[in-house]
């Protein structure tokens, strides 16, 4: 059943307001006082990108740096040794790597029928917060992370490419995004940088509802941790050796099924990854996680796309294996 639009707007605002507290420590090998520097505490939005923190991180850690002349864009962040990709939004990185148990409202409701008003606040306290990351200023892993630059050009290009791809997926062509005025595309990037929902929506709404275009597909990317992809195929030994490797799966997902019924997350996952999602209704082997929450398989993909997409227009869904 499609949700009423006021609830969707409400949900979109809640997602926009989501944030993750971080505790960032300087890598001992970059620190003059070895491991005795103070941590940097910050709480960025889930939808945003870690690279925006680099100027402040650099300024904060500069007094402790062995080499204070290093540029901010030479810095990089890691979690338990795994370099964090710049073009993955913070929320996606957290869903994939933190080890936090996703909030499962259905499970909570089943375990405590009285808790019909289950909220994120009442969720199990197993989330490892603040999320502890390490900042590095040397030995940039250029074989794993895209190189940044002083102007933020690489980050912008990466973002715009994703927006173009999402637009192409929706309409079958990239005409809408290519025909945005310079003012509009500047505003879109500015909205991402300063994290302004109204400015963002003013441009994004043109991409979601282009005049004269019929939306065909929903931009969706699925992230499988290595253990999941190993059950799917046994030949990925090279990748398994690389810690923190995630397999990214994409497929064109139409808004409607051939029967004209709306596509749900369950029908989509069942058609793209049938060995991991053998049932369209029940998560038997794995759960889809978006913004830290287990998403019910019955959710309509069109609604999800309009409300719960990240800033680049994609639904970035992490798959968490059960058991």
């Amino acid at each position, binding site marked *: 059943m499609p949700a009423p639009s006021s609830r969707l707007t409400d949900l979109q605002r809640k997602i926009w307001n989501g944030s993750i507290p971080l505790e960032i420590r300087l890598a001992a090998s970059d620190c003059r006082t070895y491991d005795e520097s103070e941590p940097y505490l910050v709480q960025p939005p889930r939808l945003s990108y870690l690279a925006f923190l680099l100027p402040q991180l650099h300024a904060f850690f500069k007094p402790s740096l062995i080499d204070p002349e290093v540029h901010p864009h030479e810095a990089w962040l890691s979690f338990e040794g795994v370099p964090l990709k710049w073009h993955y939004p913070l929320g996606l990185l957290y869903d994939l790597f933190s080890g936090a148990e996703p909030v499962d409202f259905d499970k909570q409701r089943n375990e405590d029928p009285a808790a019909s008003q289950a909220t994120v606040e009442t969720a199990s306290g197993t989330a490892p917060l603040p999320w502890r990351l390490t900042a590095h200023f040397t030995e*940039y*892993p250029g074989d794993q992370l895209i190189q940044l630059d002083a102007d933020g050009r690489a980050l912008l290009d990466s973002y715009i490419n994703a927006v173009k*791809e999402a637009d192409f997926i929706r309409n079958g062509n990239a005409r809408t995004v290519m025909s945005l005025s310079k003012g509009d595309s500047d505003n879109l990037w500015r909205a991402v940088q300063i994290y302004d929902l109204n400015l963002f929506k003013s441009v994004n709404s043109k991409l979601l509802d282009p005049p004269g275009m019929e939306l065909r597909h929903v931009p969706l990317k699925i992230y499988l941790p290595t253990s999941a992809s190993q059950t799917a195929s046994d030949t*990925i*030994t090279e990748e398994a050796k690389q810690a923190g490797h995630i397999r*990214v799966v994409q497929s*064109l997902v139409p808004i409607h099924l051939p029967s004209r019924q709306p596509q749900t997350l369950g029908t989509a996952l069942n058609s793209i990854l049938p060995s991991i999602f053998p049932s369209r209704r029940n998560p038997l082997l794995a759960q889809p996680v978006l913004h830290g929450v287990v998403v019910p398989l019955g959710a309509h993909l069109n609604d999800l796309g309009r409300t719960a997409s990240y800033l680049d227009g994609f639904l970035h869904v992490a798959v968490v294996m059960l058991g």
Partner: protein
Amino acid sequence: MSRSLRAILRRISSGTLESQEHQLSGSRENEEFVEDDDEALSRSDTSVDSPAVLYDMIHSPSYQVPVLYITFKDEAAGKRMPSVDEAYELLVPDAYRSQIEATGVVGALSMTDHPISSTPAYFVHPCQTAEAMEAVVGGRKTTPEEYLLMWLGMIGASVGLDVPVELAEAMSGPV
């Protein structure tokens, strides 16, 4: 595209071309573009020691066309990938430089995560590919091999990937 075709291209670019007739017969069974092929990647990655440019043709589920990915491997350069400007210097013949930069028929060179290895790689942006291929193919029915040869001629040439005569012959000959 067929996995064997991709494996051939990787070996050519790393300088280890072998006789491929037995591989090509496999491509007939699989006329549809196959999206990913993990076997091809793990096999060739470990065999390249000298500096190399690795080209991968991977079908894009979003754009529904083949996309050319370019990975630079150079142990001596440490972990640094060439910058976009350096990549253009290394790959693009001067004659094509202004064309590729003006993003006409061939898309611009951009950096992204390689869809299979998830490590940084350059790719030729595919947003114009479908339209450009339509212009080249016209209304004709083509086999996957014919399509790919035309695609290689258009996209590949702009980033230094010429089709070796042996490959062109093998692809066009009777199978």
